[in-house]
């Protein structure tokens, strides 16, 4: 069996890649999800329908496939069109994860926005607040509280989903653990990797529990 002291630094390197995928995905997918949520509630069908289609494709096909499609798809596209927009492996992963998670976040945010009573908009309107002020000062702060539990689920799933990046040979935590498993003919590295994921999610769970408590100052 492999020595833990030699295994840990290797896995730690992979874990940093995992964290990078995780962090960058959240950074892009949350604002994108908010924009998509607002677009999906648009009065105009020409906006609403394509957005619905996008969400259904993102939620209806495997993320694994989407990663492959973005990486190889962009490669062939740039090869044949000469546009030169092909993604490197890591950016392809970030792009795929971001647009996939944005679709899920969008549906959570839309639910949160629609759960705000009509009276809140009417009160804001009567006080002369503009639509922008109403959204950012009245609606959004209340949406945040609404969507924390459902978003926590997504965020925790994301930690584990990062292992899908290995499909285009991005060496994140799980990919490295598998290499060690093969090299030492032992499943022990996989379990150690599992502990990494578990501890990360334990910390996240604590954070979200704290956040929920913090947002509980009003009903």
């Amino acid at each position, binding site marked *: 069996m492999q020595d833990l002291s030699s295994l840990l630094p290797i896995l730690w390197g992979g874990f940093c890649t995992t964290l990078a995928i995780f962090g960058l995905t959240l950074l892009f997918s949350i604002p994108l999800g908010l924009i998509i949520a607002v677009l999906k509630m648009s009065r105009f069908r020409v906006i609403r329908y394509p957005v619905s289609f996008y969400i259904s494709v993102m939620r209806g096909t495997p993320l694994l496939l989407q990663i492959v499609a973005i990486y190889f798809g962009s490669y062939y596209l740039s090869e044949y069109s000469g546009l030169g927009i092909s993604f490197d492996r890591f950016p392809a992963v970030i792009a795929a994860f971001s647009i996939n998670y944005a679709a899920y976040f969008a549906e959570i945010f839309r639910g949160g926005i629609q759960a705000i009573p009509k009276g809140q908009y009417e009160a804001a*309107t009567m006080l002369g607040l503009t639509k922008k002020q109403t959204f950012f000062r009245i609606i959004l702060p209340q949406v945040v509280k609404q969507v924390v539990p459902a978003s926590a689920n997504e965020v925790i799933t994301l930690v584990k989903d990062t292992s899908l990046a290995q499909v285009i040979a991005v060496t994140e935590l799980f990919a490295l653990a598998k290499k060690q498993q093969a090299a030492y003919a032992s499943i022990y590295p996989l379990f150690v990797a599992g502990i990494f994921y578990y501890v990360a999610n334990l910390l996240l769970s604590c954070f979200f529990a704290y956040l929920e408590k913090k947002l509980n100052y*009003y009903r």
Partner: protein
Amino acid sequence: MDNAILKVEHLKKSFGDNHVLKDISFDLNEGEVLSIIGPSGSGKSTLLRCITQLETLDAGKVCVNGKDMVVGTDKKGLAKYAPASVLREIRLSTGLVFQNFNLFPHLTVLQNLCLAPVRVLGDDRKDARAMGRFLLKRMGLEGKEKAYPCELSGGQQQRVSIARALAMNPKILFFDEPTSALDPELTGEVLKIIKGLAEDRMTMVIVTHEMAFARDVANKVVFMDKGVIVEQGTPDFVFNQSDNERLNAFLSRFAKG
């Protein structure tokens, strides 16, 4: 009357085939209080929502503080509204107190009061806070500045929402059944506040099911049924002298309790 601060003429409003308001006309002078009474579904709230621009009206005229909300008719025969800047001026001269308060739950009482004066009127934050504190004192809510709406009773919440409307210094204050969501024992404290405002000559339009209150506080009472004004006049006329059958049937139902 030419000194009327609120003039409504031939107002009509339908939701599809449902003619909610058929031909509503009335006016109100500055410093006066108008009570609107009538059975549920008679169009009282819709009338208020049309005048406060929360609903669009189909036809008719509304003039608030000398400004016309409607400037003609469009090709479809529907009311053509005044330019946005005029509508905004009208909006800022009107305040509305809702049945369900609609306070902003994520903001403290004082933040509820100061948000619009600071963000909409551009008031100095310090002045807005001072004004907010003054209004809370007037509402008997001293010391509640930092409370969140959920920590207050229904009656206190409604008083905060009155203060929030007053903080914008409106020319006319509208009340849409301000006590209907309250327990009977909390109703009194809100009605007392509104009476106080009437004594201070605040122009108000009040939709209410509190008959005794409607009679006592108002200079003028409008009785609506099925989308039309059936009777209007002084409280004494409407409550004691009118021989209108529908009105008297309605009032006797209330007298029985």
